[in-house]
């Protein structure tokens, strides 16, 4: 009996080991453990044994059964894994091939930069306003403390529609429109297109974009202007970026300054980008002129403010090293570089 079981077990284990696939394994299983399997037959015959031998024999059968089942299950698993691996291997493709695909586009570099600037000021509590591109002389000049005979009008060659209507030459028009609409405290930026009679070259274009900024409240100081612009420069260029104020003149701010940032290419040692000066001019700014506040019915003795205006193309050119002509050419090879 014992020998019979051991022989059977050994023979089955050998068969299991050599089984080539799950079908063979299933046949082996049925042949030994099935209803009419060999081990089942032995078990069924146990009742013919003397009663005292039955427990011993039962135990042997059960042990054999467990061994076989465990071997079967291990082999099943092994064969399963092999089959899956073989199937996956057979399905392998060349992943280096590029099939025609769905491309994703991107924003124009001007708007990538614009969004980044806008986002920065929005987080500081600035609203974002739009204002007309075709404007009256009043909003573009008069209200900005630039009356008809003012020499500053010559600095920018303005496109006119007629004597009173023009293409705005600066987004500063947005200052007036905002102050007419809202009362202090005001924090706003106003991006948009502006127009000046300059021929297209590497740094000029008859149409370009500016972003205007304005803060009006009680006790606003020039140090606040410096603080905001420092924070902007550090956020936008790099953490070590410094700003520098140089005295300048705009009719609608007093005092007025040109603002330079330390060159982000050479960090101040002087290079081609900053023309060896270590500084790059990025915007004009100043404290809002009292006449401008008065024109907008804001009491200049109670409120002060600052304003700034930057050229989007200029900043885009600094960051991406682009050129004004490329910006408006819309060559797809150019546009794809900003994805």
């Amino acid at each position, binding site marked *: 009996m014992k020998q019979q079981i051991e022989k059977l077990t050994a023979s089955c284990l050998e068969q299991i080991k050599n089984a080539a696939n799950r079908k063979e394994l299933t046949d082996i299983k049925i042949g030994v453990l099935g209803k009419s399997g060999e081990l089942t037959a032995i078990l069924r015959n146990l009742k013919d044994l003397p009663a005292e031998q039955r427990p011993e024999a039962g135990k042997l059968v059960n042990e054999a059964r467990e061994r076989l089942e465990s071997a079967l299950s291990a082999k099943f698993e092994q064969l399963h894994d092999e089959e899956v691996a073989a199937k996956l291997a057979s399905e392998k493709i060349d992943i280096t091939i590029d099939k025609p695909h*769905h*491309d*994703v*586009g*991107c924003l*124009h570099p001007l*708007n990538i930069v614009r*969004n980044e600037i*806008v986002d920065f000021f*929005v987080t500081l509590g600035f*609203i*974002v306003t*739009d204002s007309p*591109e*075709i*404007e009256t002389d009043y909003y573009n000049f008069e209200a900005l403390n630039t009356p008809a*005979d003012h*020499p*500053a009008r*010559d600095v920018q060659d303005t*496109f*006119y*529609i*007629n004597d009173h*209507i023009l*293409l705005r030459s600066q987004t500063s028009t947005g200052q007036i429109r905002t102050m007419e609409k809202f009362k202090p*405290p005001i924090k706003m930026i106003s991006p948009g*297109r502006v*127009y000046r*009679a300059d*021929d297209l070259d590497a740094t000029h274009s*008859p*149409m370009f974009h500016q972003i205007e900024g304005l*803060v009006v*409240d*009680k*006790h*606003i*100081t*020039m*140090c*606040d202007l410096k*603080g*905001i612009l*420092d*924070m902007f420069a550090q956020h936008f260029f790099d953490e070590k970026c410094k700003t520098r*104020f*140089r*005295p*300048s003149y705009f009719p609608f701010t*007093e*005092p*007025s300054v040109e603002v330079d940032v330390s060159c982000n290419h050479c960090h101040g040692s002087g290079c081609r980008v900053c023309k060896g000066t270590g500084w790059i001019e990025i915007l004009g700014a100043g404290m809002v002129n*009292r006449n401008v506040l008065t024109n907008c019915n804001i009491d200049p003795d109670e409120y002060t403010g600052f304003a700034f205006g930057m050229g989007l193309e200029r900043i885009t050119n600094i960051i991406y090293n682009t050129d004004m002509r490329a*910006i*408006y050419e*819309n*060559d*797809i090879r150019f*546009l794809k570089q900003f994805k």
Partner: protein
Amino acid sequence: MKVPILWLNDYVQVDDISVEELSDKLVGVGFEVEEIIYTGEGIENVVVGKILDIKKHPDANKLQICMVDVGKEITTIVTGADNISVGNLVPVALDGAKLPDGKEIHSAPLRGVMSYGMMCSGSELNIDDTIIEGAEVHGILILPNTFEIGVDIKDALGLNQYILDIAVTANRADCQSVYGIAREVGAVLGRKVKSPNFKYKIEPAAMTLPNVSVENFDLCPRYTARLITDVTIEQSPKWMCDRLKLAGLHPINNVVDITNFVLLEMGQPLHAFDLRQIDSEIRVRTAFENEKIVALDEKEYNLNTSMLVIADKSKPLAIAGVMGGQYSGIASDTTTVLLESAKFARGSVRATSRALGLRSDSSARYERGVDWSSIDAGRERALALFYQLKAGKIADVAAQCETKAPTPKTIVTSAKQISDLLGIEVKAPAITKILKSLGFTVTQSDKKLSVEVPLFREDVENYTDLTEEVIRYYGYDNIRSTFLENAKPTVGGLSQRQKNINTLKTLLCSYGLYEAATYSFINEKQYNQLKIEKDSALRQTIKIRNPLSVEYAVMRTQLVGSMLKAVYNNTSRKNNDFKLFEISKTFIPNELPLENLPRENETLCICLVGDNHNFYELKEIVSQLLAMFDVKYKIQYSARPYVHPGISAEILTDGGNIGYFGKLHPEVAENFSVPENTFVCEITLESFIDIKGREKHYTPLPKFPAVNRDLAFVVEDKYLVGDIIDEIKNAGGNRCSDISLFDIYKGSQIEDGFKSVAFSFKIQPENKTLTDEEIQEVVNRIIDAVQEKFNAKLRLQ
């Protein structure tokens, strides 16, 4: 403005500091130095030489061998020039010399004869006749015999000078002169500024001045005149010529040079009239309509009544502040000069100069503004120069005609007020010191500062102007960074419109479109290229009065023209497959000519180019973007002249037509030289771009599963799939949803002129599972309706 260091040094000592340091200091107080010009730039080791002997070259007809005395030696130079003779003084570039164009000169044999340098022409030294007569002659520059042999050419020609090219801001009219800059330099260096020489002797004259009258004091607040007799016209002395040349002016003769010199030095435009040409009187009046004058530039100008002239009894003598008349100017035989020093209103000079297209150094200064005191200073300085140059006798007759002289303004402020604006504390003594150095008079009482503004500072009006004066000298480096310490918090953010536009752009980018940027002004001929009808509203464009060119002449009412130009920029460079979009404004006038501001409509333009793209791709993009904003619309074939009539659609909403999409008309493609397979879309965003986030409501999900059904029909080709779907929807009722075309077939099994169209749809039960009969009832309704309406045959169920 060009400020020669030599000239500046006449008034404030600057020759002991480097020109770079001076430039930095000026930039620091608000005077941008655009360029530091060195007149001898690039010239090295070039000396004055004397030609001692000239021989023919033995082996070359066109070459000559010269023996040249260059001071320390006599050297051999071979030259091809033929304008030289023995005894001439010439510039000689010695071995190792450098010339402005970057060329280096080295000893080398020329056809076998060693040449130890090169004789130079004026152009090789980069100089012209303003530096020395003969510099523009073709050939070697022949120098005057007075030059010393062996001297460096830069010293000989005065080419060792520095000039600052300064951009003076529009508010600083007082700094448009050497003396004005000298005042600032004095303040920034803390040095004394010398007073100009105003000394002259007055001599009794036997004649009287013509009567001077001013018709309109608003246009000419002050006019003064002096007579100079016994004038001898001759060349100006070298020191004066040098200064004029360095500042960029040609010396002409002593009288003209004096007026130019004073203009540059004091900033006061002057005019010298030949007394012989003045008929009886001087009248400052507005011109008559169509009055004509030939100006000093020898051109005739047609004047009108808004322009101011200096006239005599019979004719205009000068366009006030702009340019003198040709015949009243100084001639070689002029003996008596009437010298004008006046103030003309800046707006009047500006308008006249613009209207006539005539600009001059004089008009440039008047436009910025000439102050009351400069009239006297300029005139007195000129008279002193007449005296100094012995150019004539200063007669004891003078005339002036003026309104009331202005009195200096006084601004009352305080150190606190100034400090509050700056955000840093600047103490009263520091403020006082700075303002005094700039010519202000400051008196302090209690905490108040009373500041008297000098007349030449017409730009200073209130305490903020004084604050600027203080901080530009106190130093902007002292401004700290603070972050709105006293301001109230505000809520910022984008407007709904701006957010929606950003969302829209994200969607378009995800469809593989790249954002383009094109100009808002266009060439009007685009409307012809687009075949737009003559009477179309699109042609109602706003025209720019002073366009740069026809390319940028009108404000666009459509974006597609500019987009097609961008397409051409690509396809002409063999970029043949791409998708672009732009969101920008179109400018729609309410009336023409424009009286009010026009509507500025935010508009989207899409363009797909290349053989890989088709109408349905564009349609998908359009339908997705309109769905995003919940726009309910219908489409119908477009009759727009610039799109293909069979492959394009108009987008109709309850609020009207909002745009179109489809294939470009082949003729338009040809007009713009772009590929025929170009698909365009334009949508006005105004009707939906301001909508807030949609009002969403949750509808409970159906408890019972929907049943899918397919139906295929054979219909005549003429019927549109969209119409059949509408009919299925209609017949199927509320329960029927998700109707879509899944196959369209024409071929062997289908009769010619017919097509098989197959649809799938869902039938959704409401509150119980549908029985087969109930389902079939809906399907039959649909079949019947489609068969009836489209004369369709059921092909498959």
